[in-house]
């Protein structure tokens, strides 16, 4: 039996078989679902748009994971709580402005303020996290910062629960964002969804330009390539790492507000699921790779939204949407088996890093 397992090729074969089985099942399911013609074209458009919305948010969070992974070679498990923190404090800013009537008079300025407040909160959390929890452990064995990150995540989550209570809080209504535009085919897209997609695209464009065109961006790329050599080239590695956390935090905070605009509520545990999905998205796109995170986010969002129905409904499974979160994990495992480097990335999953 030992000999049997010892042959590495066999492990590969088993993994490929698992992957092939999953993909075949998905294919058969899709054909069955499409044959049943239970869903109209508009339904598919709706699913795609909500997938893109969801995916844009994943992409924004995934950027934080991917950039931190790039410079520190660790998964910042607490990043989901950075996201949650932004959404939470953004909620307070938003309720306060709604109550005082400011939001109704200047909806655009109000929204910008909410974004700023959320981004600042998240940046503060992210920077503190780096300073207190991660920096002292930079040379520690791998498991140590990872466990620290899990602890920090738990700490932040329950700190927010303790401070602000465990109840679900609803975002105040934004009259300007209600309503939808109707596409020629009859499908509708909510204003909020458009806002999310457009804002995410803009932010990612800005980030891309920053990383590719500016000096600080070049420093960031150099540090994620090799910290020691970057230091020799005169780059302040600590400052660059902090900058990475700042950018990741700001994006997570704004993603938190966007998320809350679509789903209209905040709770202390709201970060967990989007956080895990965003990590999946980062791996899907190729961890450490910034355009990859964007692509991975959108792909995962659409796969999850459309794929859940497409792959599973044909089998007559009751309530397939309940398995939505499972789909994301299956995608993660598949990617790690078939292409550990992700869609755009280099081969890092196996590297010892």
């Amino acid at each position, binding site marked *: 039996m*030992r000999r049997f*397992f*010892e042959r*590495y090729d066999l*492990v590969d074969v*088993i*993994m490929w078989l698992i992957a092939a089985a999953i993909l075949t099942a998905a294919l058969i399911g899709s054909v069955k679902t499409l044959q049943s013609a239970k869903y109209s074209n508009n339904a598919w458009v709706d699913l795609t748009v909500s997938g893109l919305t969801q995916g844009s948010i994943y992409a924004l969070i995934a950027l934080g994971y991917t950039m931190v992974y790039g410079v*520190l*070679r*660790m998964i910042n498990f607490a990043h989901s709580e950075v996201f949650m923190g932004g959404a939470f404090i953004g909620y*307070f800013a938003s309720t306060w402005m709604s109550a005082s009537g400011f939001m109704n008079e200047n909806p655009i300025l109000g929204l910008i303020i909410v974004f700023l407040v959320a981004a600042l909160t998240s940046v503060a959390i992210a920077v503190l996290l780096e300073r*207190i*929890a991660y920096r*002292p*452990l*930079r*040379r*520690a*064995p*791998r*498991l*140590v*910062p*990872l*466990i*620290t990150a*899990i*602890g920090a*995540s*738990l*700490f*932040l989550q*329950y*700190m927010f*629960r*303790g*401070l*602000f*209570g465990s109840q679900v809080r609803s975002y105040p209504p934004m009259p300007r964002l209600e309503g939808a535009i109707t596409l020629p085919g009859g499908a509708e897209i909510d204003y909020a969804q458009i806002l999310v997609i457009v804002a995410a695209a803009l932010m990612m464009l800005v980030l891309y330009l920053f990383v590719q065109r500016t000096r600080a961006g070049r420093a960031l790329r150099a540090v994620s390539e090799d*910290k020691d050599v970057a230091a020799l080239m005169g780059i302040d590695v600590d400052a660059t790492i902090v900058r990475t956390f700042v950018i990741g935090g700001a994006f997570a905070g704004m993603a938190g507000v966007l998320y809350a605009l679509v789903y209209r509520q905040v709770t202390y545990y709201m970060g*967990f699921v989007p956080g*895990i999905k965003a*990590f*999946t998205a980062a791996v899907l796109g190729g961890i450490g790779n910034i355009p990859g995170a964007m692509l991975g986010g959108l792909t995962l969002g659409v796969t999850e939204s459309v794929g859940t129905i497409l792959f599973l409904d044909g089998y007559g*499974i*009751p*309530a397939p949407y*309940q*398995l939505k*979160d*499972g789909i994301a*994990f299956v995608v*993660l*495992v598949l990617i*790690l088996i078939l292409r*550990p480097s992700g869609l755009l990335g280099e081969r890092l*999953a*196996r590297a*010892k*890093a």
Partner: protein
Amino acid sequence: MTTQRSSPFDTALRQGAVAGGVAVLLSLMGMVEAFSERDIVLGAISMGMLLIVGIMVIFGSSAARALPENRAGVRLGASALAGVVGEMFLVGLVILGQQTNLRGVFPNASPVLWELLRFGLSAPVAYLAMLGFGAGCGVLGGGLALLSQRFRGPVIVGVMAVVMIGLLEDLIGITIASNPLFATSPAVETANQFFLAQGVESGLTEAGAVVVFLVASTLAYLWPSLRSGARSRTQVLPAGRRAILPLVIYGVFVAFLLILPNFLGPYLTDVSNLVMIFTLMALGLNIVVGFAGLLDLGYVAFFAIGAYTMGVLTTTAVGGEAGQIVWGPGFSFWVALPFAVLLSLLAGVLLGIPVLRMRGDYLAIVTLGFGEIVRILALSDALKSNVGGSQGIVEPAVPSLGRLTAALPSQHVYYYLLLACVALVIFIAIRLRDSRQGRSWMAVREDEDVAQAVGVRLVSTKLLAFAAGAAMAGLAGAVFASKVGSIYPHSFDLLKSINVLAIVIVGGMGSIPGVILGALVLFGLPEILREFSEYRYFVFGALLVAMMLTRPEGLWPSSKRKQELHEGFGPEADPPPEGVAAPSGAGSA
């Protein structure tokens, strides 16, 4: 760190600010208020107050420790200032809270809290009292830092003893009162009245606190000489008698464990059952994380599989009616138990295969995904007819051995069953650790590539670790299902995995006694201190971070793991120059 060079004033301000921040945070989280219900020393010190005292003392002492050794007066002054600055934050909070209504944002910012923080005094006096209180606590901490090691240890032990006995007072009281052996004895009665505040109030009496403190600190002070005395006395024993000694000690310990439930009473027996279930899981995870270094965050999946196997195989509520599962053979507990263990073991191998090639972070997140998939499947309508969906499975079989178990209360049956399981699992874990297999695991943990190069078979080594860990979790799950009497998907969320992980980490990765200690501390205490359980995960998170920053080897470390973790890095150490960095360091890519 830069604290060495900064002025006493700056140091004090910095430590005070952090102390104040922490105190404000804990106050707003409602911890001070929730804990104030429980008195440690009757009418004098509540646990909530102790929280504030503790913070000020700790940061006061760290202010003193950050300063140069020779100037005692300056150091004490800095501690006092730190305490005052810390209390200033609380004064600010109280003033702000009384001016404006913070409750919309912070539900815990209640007038009761302000009253507590002001010590029930009225405005101007209260603020002065608070600042003075901070100074006092700071000096206390500073004084503690100035004491020599010889005295500091005993003082801390004494205070801890008072706190522990004060906290557990009502349980001790109830346990003694409910025990027929003690309840009637007049001596016990008198002692009870002297030490414990019975009735509505909780906590030690003042005289009781003093006695407990003195006894505990004296014992701690004499401990080194007592220990060396005992050791020298065993040295002179003839060899044959000396060999028997450990057996006698173990025998007494086992006998103690066997009669323990008779003293504990039903509630504490139940708590120890829960602790033992978590010990079982933690011992399993200890193999995966502690021995083999594979961070498994989906460990609860195997616990769930064990529980569900037990449920499906033994439940009598079968028939596909609303809320019931369609199929179930109705086995007895003992028949189903091996199936549960076997199925979990198999699941461990199956889930192990896809992650064989993954390391560290990836492994963590993929196993987390597995755990979530199992929970999502258990909860979904897709498998509702097989495992009950959100309605779960009820009435799994209970372990019975005819007349032997019929005579015992059910908690005691589970106690002995779990005790046997824990003993068995500890035995297996020790044997595995000391075997060739165990050495392979540790080699993989230290460096996978080097391990492979010296001939460790990675595939079988990793799969065996997963399988062994999973089997232990499955055993725990099966007993858990039977003990709780129902199986619901929400019992198997990520937090369970994190709980077990916290036990392993805090106790000491790779250390078997550490894991047991971890389960006792992290699981026994919050079960007993009800107010605490609300903040359990907050404290776990803080503990995990603090542990990793200051003592990554855990409370009761295994010697090998300690060496490994302190090799070439330390929280205070400057990053070593390249090439001298820790061999398994993260910075090599």
